[in-house]
């Protein structure tokens, strides 16, 4: 089986109009949540530096005076914790939303991979139809991530604390990251199984996904590593590109915002590509 073919078809499917609709929904949710946080932070910061010259200093980054004033004054801690709690709550909302939307995303990808396979189901309807099984698949994924990732993370941290050396530091980190990527890849195959077969059992979906990954291990790993590398590269490019924007004026801030959002959009698309390549691989293997 040719992994490049699976990747190529996956990318093509992720670029189809139906998949871009799914991309728009996921990005929309994330951007809306980020906008809530942005508005709250802007309000708190603006009030804190109202009519102070320190407000202008924020144009060039994080001035030390502002940092010290913000984090050492009485009451600053509670404000900071409140914002942090809001961010955590918004992240949980995003996790729930992305799980809920994943059925629709997979349905669109499969629709693109199987062009001409009949009338397309509305995106939200597909999301709603598969929300339950997708939640269960995600919960099993969480269990895997906590158990496997947790053990590896403990080994990793213990090794670093014990001064196990540079080679250990890099190898253990690599193993940890690849293990997480493999779990995500298997989970993606399980999601595809749910939508492709209509089988609402998450356990059956995971069993099928694990069997698929085991049977096609070399190709499966190649696709997982490809997705991991591309995701890391796009994330790095997005962050670096945003960092190059001079944001010391109102216009600069707006340009930075736009460039930043393009980067976020790119990262979400790459995530859909990862899902799509696994769907493509599974289809080729069938």
């Amino acid at each position, binding site marked *: 089986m040719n992994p490049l073919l699976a990747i190529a078809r996956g990318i093509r499917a992720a670029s189809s109009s139906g998949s871009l609709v799914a991309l728009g929904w996921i990005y929309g949710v*994330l*951007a809306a*949540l*980020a906008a809530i*946080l*942005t*508005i709250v*932070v*802007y309000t708190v*910061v*603006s009030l*804190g*530096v*109202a*009519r*102070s*010259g*320190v*407000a*202008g200093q*924020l*144009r060039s980054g*994080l001035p*030390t*005076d502002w*940092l*010290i*004033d913000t984090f*050492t004054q009485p009451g600053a801690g509670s404000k900071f914790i409140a914002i942090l709690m809001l961010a955590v709550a*918004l*992240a949980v909302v*995003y*996790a729930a939303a*992305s*799980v809920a939307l*994943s059925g629709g995303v997979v349905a669109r990808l499969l629709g693109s991979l199987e062009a001409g396979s009949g009338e397309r189901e509305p995106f939200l309807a597909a999301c709603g139809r598969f929300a339950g099984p997708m939640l269960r698949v995600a919960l099993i*994924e969480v269990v895997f991530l906590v158990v496997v990732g947790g053990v590896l993370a403990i080994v990793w941290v213990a090794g670093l604390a014990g001064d196990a050396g*540079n080679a250990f*530091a890099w190898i253990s*980190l690599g193993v940890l990251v690849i293990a997480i990527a493999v779990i*995500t890849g298997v989970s993606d195959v399980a999601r595809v199984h749910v939508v492709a077969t209509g089988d609402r059992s998450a356990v059956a979906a995971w069993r099928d996904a694990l069997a698929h990954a085991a049977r096609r291990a070399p190709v499966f790993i190649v696709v997982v590593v490809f997705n991991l590398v591309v995701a890391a590269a796009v*994330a790095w490019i*997005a*962050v670096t590109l*945003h*960092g190059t924007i001079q*944001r*010391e*004026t*109102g216009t*600069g*801030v707006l340009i*930075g*915002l736009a460039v*930043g*959002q393009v*980067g*976020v959009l790119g*990262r*979400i698309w790459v995530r859909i590509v990862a899902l799509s390549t696994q769907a493509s691989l599974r289809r080729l293997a069938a």
Partner: protein
Amino acid sequence: MNTRTILIAMLVAACCAPILTRGAQPPGTTATVVRLPAPVEALDPRPLAPIAASSDPAFRPKRTPGELSDRVVSYTMQATLDPSPGVKSVTGKQRLTWRNPSDAPVGELQFHLYLNAFRDRESTFMRESGGKLRGDIMPEDGWGNIEVTSMATAAGEDLLPRLEFIQPDDGNVEDRTVARVPLTTPVAPGQTIELDMSFVSKLPKIFARTGHAGNFFFVGQWYPKLGVYEPKGMRGRTDSGWNCHQFHANSEFYADFGVYDVELTVPENFTVGATGALLGGRPSPDGGVTYHYRQADVHDFAWTADDNFVTGERTVSIEGASDVKVTALVQAEHAATLERHLDASEKSLRWFHANIGPYPYETLTCVDPQEDGDGAGGMEYPTLITAGIATTSEGTLPEVDDPLLEIVIFHEFAHQYWYGMVASNEFEEPWMDEGITSYSEDLGLPDLWPAKRSAYVAYGGVNVLCLPFENPALAEFSRFAAQRSVVRRGPLINQSWGYKGAYGYGVNAYPRPAIALQSLRILVGDETMRRILRTYFDRWKFGHPTSQDFFDVASEVSGRDLQWYFDQAFRSDRLLDYGVQSVETREQQDTVDVILERVGDAVFPIDARVTRADGSMETLSWDGRSAQRVFTIARLPAVQRVDVYPNGSPRLDAFATNDTWTERTDRAGPARLATDCGLLFEHLTLLLLGAF
């Protein structure tokens, strides 16, 4: 009036002050200027921290032709290093000559035996440190100690049986870091005594600056060293006596100046660096090589030996001063940084020569400790300093634009002036060394490394992340030491072991005095402050001054009594915070009220600046004593900005946000921060939860 009446009157006055002040301000005029100094005790009757008085003028440094210091003591030593596993010790002999500098006979001698701090867990050092220092923990097999094996006068009188350990600071009978020896015949005023001593120093594993790590040895606090006999009047003393403190976790230096003539014998394959000039080397009859070092006008001698050093040398010539031979001893795997060690040492030398005073010694040696010995990094000894790639770059080679190595070298070199030559008492007034050294960084680093410099985070031997701030700008973070949580815990001046824990010492010895001196610079101006430091160094080099001696120099050079400032900043727990409370327009009167407020309880004179729409400026002067001051000024041209500290904010001011007032709140700054936060949220969410 009794005390209660006075207190009630003060309370009423304090409550009414803002109202009275506001009411007294005639519209359209600038406030009357009432300049400090004035007694600030009236604002706050809490007592100030006690400090030693000024030194008696008779104890200002003596200048003997050909000698830099009053050489009270001299050591002629022969020491042999045995680096064998399980031994790791130095066997030594010394002839010690001491002159009684007082006008009364002295009947006993007191010695530092500081290596005994690492004898067991019960020493004062280990109790105070909890067995941890700079993140290092003393391993169970790492203990060290010093044993005096013989002690006799030149006439042959055996003094060893009389040697007893004393604990002048805390009464901890388990502490053996100070010993006294009663003399049969007291040393008469101006007379000298000679002692012949032998000792064995078992070096600890490097945990607190000294010891061994593999074949790297850093040998400090390694020989029986006399304390300082302080005559009445010296450092404000009211009676004569020994000043010989136990070894504490947070301080280690106070000794007399003298001459050190030392022969060090080490295995042939070891490279040695030490205090002073290398006079020569010769094969030792017992094997190995003997190196001969000599240095006068220093108060300590330390050395290092390693079989993994690579060496770089450079002669620094400065007009009007003698040449200095700079040597860098760097671990072989860090050989690429040799030039950086030399460059930073040279730049530091030149900066101090130009800004503080000449460096009078012929040598400077900069050492890079072995990675497992990074507890010896970032330290100062006379003409010998340590930096440490392992510490500054977490084991990686430093990036070109990461100057932390240079910053450490500059800091340790600065100690050559304040710890080394001025030689204040680090136990009793730690701010005078570390604080002035930190302030020197504040002055020198922007001159020496002005370009953008980055800080890196290393992982697995690679710098993986370049942090988005400039390294020298880290000094700006020192303003955290002005915060309530620090200031209210007590005055800046204290004994090194009198602070609450290592943090209490650290914050009060380093950043708090540095920001107090920076604030003094704002008060007196850059040029005056520069002259204060130069005068202080010039007057007190080789002199053991007190805090009050520094304060006196500052008042003298600035031409005004600054005691009110030092009392508040150094001897009290007063908080400094001034701000613009509000700017209110009174349409009917066609005036604007600029209301300045004193939020803290420290008093500082204010020359606030008002900037108007047409670019014109005016100054509002206030003595800062009342809780609030209203300045009524003309409404037009419109007031655009008010700066409480137009000449730069004193970092002692706890809250910078209220130091300025602007007509409009800038929106782009908060917007940048908020959108960046939103974007960070998106990226982190995708990283952590993107799998779903």
